[in-house]
């Protein structure tokens, strides 16, 4: 059964018809039942059931925070979306995974943050390349949306901003007197 929930995508709250498959204890990637419809499978399931999943029109994959972006390097064309899981919002590995997916591997599709996704991390997440956010279900998604606009300027480069402030603008001290 598909439950439509809301996510933030491209800075808007939208309905989402994807489901995320997570392996429970005792499940194995080889044998777990993959739901019908649009499903985001763990990378281990993709790896084990590649042939079967390739038959689907649309498939997504999610990477754990301990993964390297490189593992999906050769398969990116098959995915309608790639998600990165944040098991805890304090686990920052997903930021580097996203950065590498976007910059090094040139992934241009939907990049979604899933898991412990909270308002106060969204600004940083969008900077490294996430454009979709499955905000944790107990949080107000409309409130979380505000997190995308915390700052209007940034010093350094990342995926969203290829030019550092010092190359982008003429800078000069402003007198406070």
């Amino acid at each position, binding site marked *: 059964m598909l439950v439509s929930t809301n996510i933030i995508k491209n800075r808007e709250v939208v309905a989402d018809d994807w489901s995320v498959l997570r392996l429970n204890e005792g499940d194995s990637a080889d044998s777990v039942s993959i739901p019908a419809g649009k499903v985001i499978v763990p990378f281990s399931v993709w790896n084990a059931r590649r042939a079967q999943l390739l038959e689907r029109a649309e498939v997504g994959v999610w990477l754990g925070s301990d993964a*390297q972006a490189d593992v999906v390097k050769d398969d990116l064309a098959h995915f309608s979306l790639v998600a990165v899981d944040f098991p805890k*919002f*304090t*686990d*920052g*590995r997903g*930021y*580097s*995974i996203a*950065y590498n997916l976007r*910059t*090094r591997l040139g992934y241009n599709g939907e990049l979604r943050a899933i898991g412990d996704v*909270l308002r*106060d*991390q969204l*600004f*940083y*997440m969008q*900077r*490294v390349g996430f454009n979709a956010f499955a905000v944790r279900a107990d949080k*107000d998604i409309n*409130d979380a949306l505000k997190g995308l606009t*915390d*700052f*209007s*300027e*940034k*010093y*350094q*480069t*990342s995926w969203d901003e*290829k*030019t*550092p*402030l*010092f*190359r982008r*603008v003429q*800078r*000069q*001290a*402003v007198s*406070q007197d």
Partner: protein
Amino acid sequence: MYRYDQYDHLIVKERVAQYRDQVRRRLADELTEEEFLPLRLQNGLYMQRHAYMLRIAVPYGMLSSPQVRMFAHIARKYDRGYGHLTTRQNIQFNWINLEQSPDILAELATVEMHAIQTSGNCIRNTTSDELAGVAADEIIDPRPYAEMIREWSTFHPEFAFLPRKFKIAISGAEQDRAATAVHDIGLHVVKNAEGEVGFRVLVGGGMGRTPIIGSVIREFLPWQHALTYLEAILRVYNQHGRRDNKYKARIKILVKALSAEEFARQVEAEWLDIKDGPATLTAEELQRIAQYFTPPPYETLPATDAGFEGQKTDNKGFANWLKRNVKAHKVSGYAAVILSVKKTGVPPGDITAAQLDFVADLADQYSFGEVRVTHEQNLVLADVKISELFTVWQAVKAQGLATPNIGLLTDIICCPGGDFCSLANAKSIPIAQAIAEKFDNLDFQHDIGDIELNISGCINACGHHHVGNIGILGVDKDGSEWYQVSIGGAQGNNTSIGKIIGPSFSAQQMPVVIERLLNVYVQQRTEEELFIDTVQRLGIAPFKEFVYASPIPTGYTHGEDACVY
């Protein structure tokens, strides 16, 4: 010193608004304490034993007089009338209300200050040499590079949730005064054979429970590549640093596990991808920032002054102060003055609102309106005319900031310890005070000469005990406070980690322990030999033997605490 432009102002203003709303959401229970914790830490707000503590960033230790006056104002309005200088060149206030913390940030923003990334698992405030720009032994002024690193690391989106805190220090002089070898990244500004400026890059140093001296992973990195290379180091660390055990999460553990060579290889591979990209620094940007660090309008002065020479001869107190608290300057007729925030009877690094106002006025009058914070928790007036030193000394003396003990036994580096810090296993301030009282005799201290006594109240080593010539570490044994002593540690160009001399002591025993260590030194030293030299020559054995040779009274007469052996 660096002045904000419209972009710096905007970013800091937006931070205040963001943080104010985070506090509001916490108070409204929209954020749990667990969710709020890393947010407030990245804004320097800790929950301590009694109250919140707010740590304010002092980028590379540089302050203007209006900023110092703002500290005095904060101390009066929001705290209990004083602040505490930290070993990372910052200042912190110990009695803060959560509800008022956004207002403090708003007030700080009016003088180009903030508390961004002074705590939390992110890139912390970059530290540097307190004598940068004035030191006689300086090769290149490191401050423009420190400022470029400040901007790059501020809200870096990829590195805000690292495995652990991350500290960078930069030094540009022959003598390393920034403890670069015990930082996650240490940068030495150097010139190569062609005279080009670059960095020697050390990585994986640190203190805490596993003290390690940083390894050089690159002998020469052209300065233009500073930020891309740092980015490569941080990316390798973010992905591969341990997250399963917070005590093994610092980059030093990763570097040790991989070996410095392998770590360097991974960084170079990562760097190849971004090297020469848009984040490469430009001569224009260096020039823009360097213009804020140009020399102040020095007068052309003779190397000395007749009046000054007379004052020096006539007044022993002044001569002592000159000897210890005044440092050579690269400009003729000027000197750098260190204000000792280590008066006996006062917790090391604690400074009152009145003293802060006084220092700001003094800086305006005698030192181009600038003040620096040292990592030994003192303050510096970097540009004082030699002819005015006597006047400055008299004024400073009246404020209790002229104790002529810089570099001496009572210039103790000391963390806040169990009196404030909720991490501490033991108190450290009373230990520092008891030692300072016992050795208050300045003649004795001057005779002992340069010695570093560092005290930490717990294994996190905020008091840098590992690199103290004498290091004291507070430990908890069965619910009571004990102190472990190490000797032979050193910071600077010959950084070394101290060795523990044996079983720990009670608080009451500590002054006698120090006395015994010093006795061995006084008896064994050769002429000209400092305490550290004697320890290095003889090893710890003779010290250990004498310290433990006979029982030291504990103040306790019965029970478990009666004897340490």
